[in-house]
């Protein structure tokens, strides 16, 4: 339902300010959206590379596990798995990107946990599988990190686009229409005032003319 606004000059001035603000807001939001889209496409490249790395790391890890199970035996592999109930600590910081809070995930450093089992007895293939699976874990975390950033930025782009559309399609036309309506009413009123004044003026002039005629007639009669 359209808002009823008193067609006053103060409302007109207020609406003009609102229109200026809405245009500036839409412009800012468009610039934010463009910046986010730029960031999004940069991140898409990183994300695609991370996915390719994950596929490669996954193939290498599962091949190495295949070979470890074959050469060192599934018992040896399962035995090492018993001891490796380690938790992976992932560092997460929140970064402010054009007002959007996006997580920045640091891939874990497995260097400290490398000495989980004795190097004397462990099979070479099993050790290789363990290294490859650590690389796979890193690749998974890297994909998760980039894709989470990508999703957050994508959501923000959608949100910003909706706001820009709302401003451009609804708010700005609405204010513009209100300004037009107020101006139309004010113009109408100004026109009416002019007409009334003209009519008063005509009446006054007619009265003056009548008075002049009457005075002239009176002067002629007295002469």
């Amino acid at each position, binding site marked *: 339902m359209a808002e009823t606004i008193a067609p006053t000059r103060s409302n007109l001035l207020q609406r003009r300010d609102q229109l200026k603000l809405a245009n500036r807001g839409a412009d800012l939001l468009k610039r934010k959206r463009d910046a986010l889209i730029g960031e999004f496409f940069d991140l898409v490249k990183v994300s695609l590379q991370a996915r390719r790395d994950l596929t490669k790391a996954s193939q290498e890890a599962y091949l190495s596990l*295949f070979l470890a199970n074959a050469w060192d035996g599934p018992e040896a592999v399962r035995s090492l798995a018993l001891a490796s109930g380690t938790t992976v600590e992932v560092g997460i910081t929140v970064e402010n990107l054009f007002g959007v809070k996006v997580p920045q995930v640091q891939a874990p450093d497995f*260097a400290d946990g490398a000495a989980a089992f004795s190097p*004397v007895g462990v099979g070479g293939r099993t050790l*290789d599988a363990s290294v490859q699976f650590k690389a796979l874990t890193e690749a998974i975390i890297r994909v998760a990190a980039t894709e989470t950033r990508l999703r957050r930025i994508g959501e923000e782009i959608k949100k910003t686009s909706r706001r820009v559309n709302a401003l451009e399609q609804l708010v700005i036309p609405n204010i513009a229409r209100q300004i037009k309506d107020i101006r139309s009413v004010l113009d109408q009123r100004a026109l009416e005032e002019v007409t009334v004044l003209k009519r008063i003026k005509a009446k006054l002039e007619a009265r003056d003319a009548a008075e002049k005629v009457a005075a002239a007639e009176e002067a002629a009669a007295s002469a």
Partner: protein
Amino acid sequence: MSSNYGYLNARVRGLRAKLLDETFAQSAIEAGSFEAFVTSLSQTAYAPDLEEARGRREGLPMVDDAIATNVARTTRSLLRMADGRARELLGVLLMRFDAANLKSVARTFHARSARGGGGESDDAVASLAAATLPAGALDAHILERMITAADLPNAAQVLVLKGHPLGPTFRKAVAAYAASGDLFELEVAIDLGYHEVVRERVEEHDVPPAFLRYGQIEIDATNLRTALKVRGRGLEPGRFFVPGGRVVSKDVFVEIASSAPGAALPSLRAPFDALGDGGDLASVEVGVRSVLERYAKGLVHDPLDIGLVTHYLYAKEREAALLRLVARGTFYGVPSDTLRRELGHA
């Protein structure tokens, strides 16, 4: 102590004749399907083990189960066949299975304490059974008694009471672990303790020179592999050196272990002189395996000593690895070229 090597070696010759080689593996790869491989395997000496495993599992785990059962059954029957000195030396040869199983016991207890000490003992027994190959003196029953003990010191006590040669080593390592909680140190202590016990046992017996040479080359192979595994990990390398080798001295070991990952190996004396410049573990592993194969083959000539058994055990493990490789390859549909390339590393 006398030994009836004639009887033992005659039986081992019979077992050797039944070993499956690359020809079997190649034909299984050519057959191309896992089902065809299982059918071929069920027509070999693995038939009873496969039948037994079929009741417990299916697919690839069934084949793994059958292979493990076959290896354990074979070593047990060898222990039954041997007597006197032959049995003691066979015990020494099979002790590495015990060392590996003891590490599995330790890892199970460590994992349980890391989880807060909870967990059903049935679960622990099942996970230990899946992580052990009872092909040494410690059978599944003893391992189960160890894992159902209240804690690791009590499990060590079970081992000591059984009179196992690794008992004192394990108990000492467990005592240190109880104070520190450091599983890595416990595993290193078991590995180094195992090699020390083997060296003492070999020194106690008047072993033939070829067998001694093989043992020394095996220690060299272990040291070479360990040096490459330690490389670039920031560990103090000297403590992982196993004394008693023939070619790889402690200085060479430390030199390899301290070099950068991927760096070429220093020039080594024969028989490791053919390892080439390749400094990665996988290529060295292939070279070391071929040296060990050559030395193991050199043991078969003396019919009245442990050499034939030593070579048979080596060949049996190789056979198990080949079968696991082909089973996995056909199960997962690995390209035959990749499988053939891996077979070439055998």
